[in-house]
């Protein structure tokens, strides 16, 4: 399974949650599959989805699911100690780990080689790290939401992309409707 197939499968679960989605293809795919006011699409700033989601989870009570990638987590590796040491039980970080930088042409990441993000997250102090196969993602994600416990999910999947249009929505519109959804 590739990322877009995983997103299609978990879209009905994500629909009821606040979602912060990583820059590039992940946001474009989620936007195409199931655009919701509860989705915050990153149009720039690689690596910060997990940080934005953590700030959001610590500031209000609704569940926040961050859709991140292995490449983006590697870009902002300092995020994992911050997450581990600032526990928010309404925070779920779903790392779609396809071992490649998908948005830039599937160049390999170190997570697809010798580096295990699951072990890195554990070593950083994250207490609830689940590694799963792509096919299990929906089940693992729903379980994490129901558990109301901070969870890091590392979903190992295949690399590959589908053709998808860029997001042309104004960033202030994305932010404004997202904030209205957060506050509702």
């Amino acid at each position, binding site marked *: 399974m590739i990322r877009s197939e995983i997103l299609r499968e978990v879209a009905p679960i994500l629909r009821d949650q606040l979602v*912060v989605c990583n820059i590039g293809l992940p946001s474009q795919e989620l936007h195409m599959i199931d655009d919701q006011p509860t989705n*915050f699409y*990153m*149009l*720039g*700033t690689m*690596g*910060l*989805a*997990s*940080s*934005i*989601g*953590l*700030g*959001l*989870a*610590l*500031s*209000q009570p609704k569940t926040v699911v961050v859709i991140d990638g292995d490449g983006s987590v590697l870009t*902002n590796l*300092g*995020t994992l*100690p*911050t997450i581990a040491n*600032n526990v928010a039980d309404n925070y779920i970080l779903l790392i779609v780990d396809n071992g490649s930088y998908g948005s830039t042409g599937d160049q390999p990441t170190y997570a697809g080689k010798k580096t295990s993000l699951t072990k890195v997250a554990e070593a950083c102090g994250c207490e609830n790290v689940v590694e799963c196969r792509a096919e299990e993602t929906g089940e693992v994600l729903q379980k994490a939401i129901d558990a109301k416990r901070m969870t890091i999910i590392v979903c190992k999947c295949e690399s590959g992309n589908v053709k998808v249009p860029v997001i042309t929505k104004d*960033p*202030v519109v*994305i*932010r404004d409707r*997202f*904030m209205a959804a*957060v*506050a509702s």
Partner: protein
Amino acid sequence: MSISKQIVDDFVANDIAFVTTVPCKQLGGVIEEVEARPEIYHIPSNKEDEGMGLCAGAFMGGKRPAIIMQNTAIGVTINTLVTLTQFYRMPLPMLISFRGELKEPVACQAEMAIHTKPLLQQLGIPTYHFHKQDDVRELDAILKYTFMSSKPVAILTDATFWGGY
């Protein structure tokens, strides 16, 4: 009253409830004060762009954020300031120690000090420079201006303001 206490009093009076910090000797007193206040969630970050991401999330979650960092961080965070904070039009007070100014003992700090104001100007970031201790009186108005205008705003505090090292 200490300057650090006065600064954090202004934060609290302006409903700032989420503060991320990167360590700094000059701002050590402010960081301690932030940590001590029950009104503020203090979250140290490992890098300033990470901190700006945290602040963006907190703002969207309904909490007023602020970041405390050194001026070297301007070099680290340009992309984040432009494509996150400014592009999505979010307010962010940035309390910055202006290293490399008069009384600086470390030569390397002077290099980034020279670029600090030109970079902020190039980015269109409103910038205030605290040089004398009385300058802190403007902080309350600067914070109100930041949240009124929904912009990142820089408050540079140099060594003379802090009374030397």
